[in-house]
């Protein structure tokens, strides 16, 4: 088969959203990704939503049936929310573990969408880039929802600075009866909505920060013990457009999709929705999860991280019955998958990010799914400083200083807008500048090919870790004439538990059920239906019945796995000599 070109990757390098589609480039060896010229800014590199969607369609069309593109719902503005199903057997009768990748939940982390689509492409086109895709796909179904929030994606490209991915009915953030009337704004006309340092602070809104001597572009809290006085306050760039005394307090937009899920939902936050899953995008994802019970793991690319750093396992919510992050009994699982991630991607740093009401938090806490989050990339190490800077004072925020250093030494200083004085119409003297929007969230396009390779490697490794629960053997023994004892041994020889501890708490994932198809009169010991709630990696379980069985008849036992797969165990006269037979049944859902 002719392998299609790297459609997604190709589009990822388009420099301008408005640029016409370029002809596909010849396929590059996957092990040696092409090196495009470094783009001047991070935003210009991102492609338009339409171009990305077109690339998904092309991927499905060129995949020889391995990739199907389905709709899982419609966004607030009527855009289709796509899901890619990647499988080596489109008509698979017996289910295999499935991994779901979700990206593009907001407008700020669009590189996650490109990586998610790129991973799907790697698997679909069997490119051997750090993974043996064919082997992996034999035992794995991959679902990819690369653009979970297409409205935010589309708006984010046009106006990335003032729209962080909020969708739906516009919300009156400051509850003053006027909607979206005072959004952050480009006051000094430099084309960017950045930050302001207010220098003339009134007594009721006093200054709180001083410039950091280590790098005056950065700031820190003043040291009162040394008599240091604050010099300015920080706020988003904007005007008081409605004359209410506040700046930029009623931004454009409605619900933040990734704050609209039920776990730790912030009920009174303006952007969290009037109720959980109010946003159609959030509802579509929730329904997808509810109607796909065979998912073995969820991988979310975007804001949060649960892999570079192991999530907290001690904090509980207000009821005391649901963990804020993860259950203590799942800590080992997260530690192991985290190590796998760090080994696969080299990503060991992560930024703090809001977790309340997020899709990932809900998938784990309320649906019991092993859910892993990645911020897609990490701050690269800056080149070494020049000799004369090596003894510079230590900055208060070393991470911010490192970002600045990387910007200055390796990125042509594109990451930070120098503070420039400005006479603000209502605030008086201000300085406008700060981090270039997106600089710390979106990697340069040049990094994308390697990131896709690394994340594909991690997904392959994650798939290899799946729980593998199966009937190991079936023993049958004639206890007395016409009376048979049946024992079914089960084993999990995968590397994940059959269900997370959280799933065993919230009952969202069914147990493994074994059901003997015998009449109540024939059952001498054991219940008709037996359940196994827990099967950790490398562990076994046995279930026995004693039944009346006449010669030349058979007993059937249905084995129903949490993944939705079921097998049939047959015990007949031959089973007394050779053990019972296990017949693959297929899907239940």
């Amino acid at each position: 088969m002719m392998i299609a070109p790297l459609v997604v990757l190709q589009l990822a390098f388009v420099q301008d959203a408005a640029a016409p589609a370029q002809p596909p480039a010849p396929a590059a060896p996957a092990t040696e990704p092409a090196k495009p010229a470094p783009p001047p800014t991070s935003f210009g590199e991102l492609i338009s939503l339409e171009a990305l969607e077109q690339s998904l369609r092309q991927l499905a069309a060129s995949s020889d049936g391995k990739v199907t593109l389905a709709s899982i719902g419609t966004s607030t503005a009527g855009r289709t929310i796509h899901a890619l199903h990647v499988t080596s057997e489109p008509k698979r009768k017996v289910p295999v573990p499935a991994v779901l990748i979700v990206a593009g939940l907001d407008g700020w982390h669009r590189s996650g969408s490109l990586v998610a689509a790129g991973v799907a492409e790697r698997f679909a086109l069997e490119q051997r880039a750090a993974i043996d895709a064919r082997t992996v796909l034999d035992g794995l179904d991959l679902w990819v929802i690369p653009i979970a929030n297409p409205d935010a994606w589309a708006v984010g490209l046009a106006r990335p600075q003032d729209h962080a991915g909020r969708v739906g009915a516009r919300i009156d953030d400051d509850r003053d009866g006027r909607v979206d009337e005072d959004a952050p704004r480009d006051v000094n006309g430099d084309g960017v909505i950045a930050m302001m340092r207010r220098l003339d602070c009134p007594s009721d809104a006093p200054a709180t920060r001083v410039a950091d001597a280590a790098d005056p572009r950065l700031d820190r809290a003043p040291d009162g013990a040394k008599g240091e006085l604050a010099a300015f306050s920080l706020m988003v760039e904007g005007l008081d457009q409605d004359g209410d005394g506040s700046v930029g307090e009623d931004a454009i937009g409605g619900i933040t999709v990734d704050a609209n899920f039920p776990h730790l939902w912030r009920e009174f936050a303006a952007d969290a929705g009037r109720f959980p899953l109010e946003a159609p995008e959030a509802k579509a994802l929730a329904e997808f999860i509810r109607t796909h019970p065979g998912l073995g793991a969820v991988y979310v690319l975007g804001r949060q991280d649960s892999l570079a750093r192991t999530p907290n396992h001690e904090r509980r919510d207000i009821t005391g019955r649901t963990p804020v992050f993860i259950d203590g009994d799942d800590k080992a699982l997260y530690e192991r998958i985290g190590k796998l991630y760090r080994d696969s991607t080299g990503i060991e740093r992560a930024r703090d990010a809001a977790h309340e009401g997020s899709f990932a938090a809900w998938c784990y806490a309320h649906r019991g799914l092993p859910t892993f989050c990645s911020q897609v990339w990490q701050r690269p190490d800056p080149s070494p400083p020049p000799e004369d800077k090596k003894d510079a004072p230590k900055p208060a925020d070393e991470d911010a200083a490192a970002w600045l250093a990387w910007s200055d030494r390796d990125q042509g200083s594109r990451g930070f807008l120098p503070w420039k004085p400005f006479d603000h119409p209502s605030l008086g003297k201000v300085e406008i500048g700060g981090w270039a929007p997106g600089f710390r969230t979106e990697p340069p396009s040049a990094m994308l090919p390697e990131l896709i390779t690394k994340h594909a490697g991690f997904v392959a490794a994650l798939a290899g870790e799946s729980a593998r629960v199966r009937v190991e053997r079936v023993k049958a023994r004639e206890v007395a004439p016409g009376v048979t004892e049946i024992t079914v041994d089960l084993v999990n020889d995968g590397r994940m538990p059959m269900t997370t501890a959280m799933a065993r708490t919230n009952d969202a994932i069914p147990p493994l059920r074994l059901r003997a198809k015998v009449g109540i009169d024939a059952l001498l010991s054991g219940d008709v239906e037996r359940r196994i709630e827990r099967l950790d990696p490398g562990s076994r379980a046995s279930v026995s019945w004693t039944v009346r069985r006449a010669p030349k008849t058979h007993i059937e036992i249905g084995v129903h796995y949490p993944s939705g797969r079921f097998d049939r165990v047959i015990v007949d006269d031959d089973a007394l000599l050779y053990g019972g037979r296990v017949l693959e049944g297929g899907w239940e859902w």
Partner: protein
Amino acid sequence: MVMAPMIVIAAAALAPQDALPSKSGIAWNRYRDYDELLAAVRQVAARSPNLVRIEEIGKSALGRPMVVAIVNNPTTGPEASKPAMWIDGNIHGNEVQAGEVVGYTLDALCNAHGQVPGLTELIDRSVFYLCPSVNPDGRDEWFSKAHTPNSNRTGLQPFDNDRDGELDEDGPDDLDGDGSIGQMWRKDPNGTHRRDPRDPRRFTPVSREPKPDGTVERGDWSFAGEEGIDNDGDGRVNEDGQGGYDMNRNWPSDWQPDHVQRGAGPWPLSYPETRCVAEFILARPNIAAVQSYHNAGGMILRGPGVQYNESAYPASDRAAYDAIAAAGAQMLPGYRPMIIYKDLYTVHGGFVNWTAEGLGVVSFTNELWTDDRIMQNGSAPTEEQRTRWRDDVLFGRTFKDWTEVQHPTLGTILVGGQNKWSSRATPHFMLEEECHRNFAFTTFHASQMPLLRAGHTRVRSLGEGVWEVSVEICNDRRIPTRTGRAADRGIAQPDLLTIGLSDPAGVVAAGGVAEGGVLDRTYSPVKAEPARLRVERGIPGLGSTVFRFIVRANAGSTVRLRYESQKASPLDIELLMQESGSP
């Protein structure tokens, strides 16, 4: 102004103790299934077309219409300009008389309008949204199928209660064909019970205490559960009946997943019934009072549903809650004001918890009917007294004699006992009284929705064409224009006091006076928008707040003020710029 005397004359023509003439012709002294109840509600609306409008707000899980009757007198203003009360019932399918109480309330409001001055005034300044059944499928099911007094609470969306991959496959079965789900008793030589020789309808427990000779008494009957068989052959009986969730645990505030709150559903508002009611309520920020009807127990319940939400009811709100509940306890014999988590049980995601704690609206749940009502002195009856009541007053109609039935796994058993009408439904001959007293309670609650009035005003010249304008805004009812809960959590819009001048720049400064009702104190100036004062905490119940403006205006000119609250009709005030008012 012309209408009021006519209303008084019309009312005077009626004997005060007699029933008001019924416009609908409906008597609320019997029970109706959902179709009949809906027909009755539509009939009430059809007979009062100038006052009632029926709106279908959605469909139930099985496609039945979800209906709200809207009572509004359009000649006194559009709905959105008036405070409104939401009244619903029967979210639990088996709690049937809630539907009759809501239907009666609608009918009684229509009958009273133009006949009873106090109610006419209340109706003309308010809006009522009445949803007779939040669970039409459950109601229909209870009437048409075999059930117990306690089933079905649920809606009828299929649900896998026993996590076996099958939906609703093993519910109770009406083995004796009596239209009710009773009890099963099996003969047992080591039984826990004996039949009472004085009243063989009763099974009495045998003592578990050893006798002096060391032996333990054995009974000859044991309880075998609720009427039913093992439909799915899993060895268990009745473990996965219809539905199996609780729509009164499916609301957004403090919603918790199933492992914390059984029956909560997969997420808040996951059912079509709860979702459409929530959408309806959210679209109407003028709703200032909520009443939800359940059964049974004679309770006037308020939140919180859990202890950790105690702070959701600050003292200023509790004053209104306590006063309204205390009035209810006077109107409703046997009913007691109670707090859900403290006096009943813990509830996460309850409906009134959402309306009270999430929307900041004063909300009650009444648990209709208490069998304390069967006693002359209102005390709790003993089981024997209850049996006599059922025999002597209900003529034994709630009991089904024990009948022998061949059970597929238990053998010969007895089936029978008290039927679904026996304990939670108000007896039919007391139904109208139940409806009327609860109607009276909700109209009292509605009457306490905010009512604004201008109190003291004062205009003082500060010289040079500058005036100090002071105005007291009074709320003559117990519910504040913004509950403390709404103000604390920033729920919906705060109140607004705007001032209109020919020159918009003429408003120099403005603010509120800290001490309520006192004109001669200094005020706290706002930092921005003095012509548009944002009143975050609203006007307190049975209280007032003074506001002050410093304006430039010509002597003799008129200044117009407007006070707007989402929970009250707006108040317009005009003041002449000339020295006036008292300190």
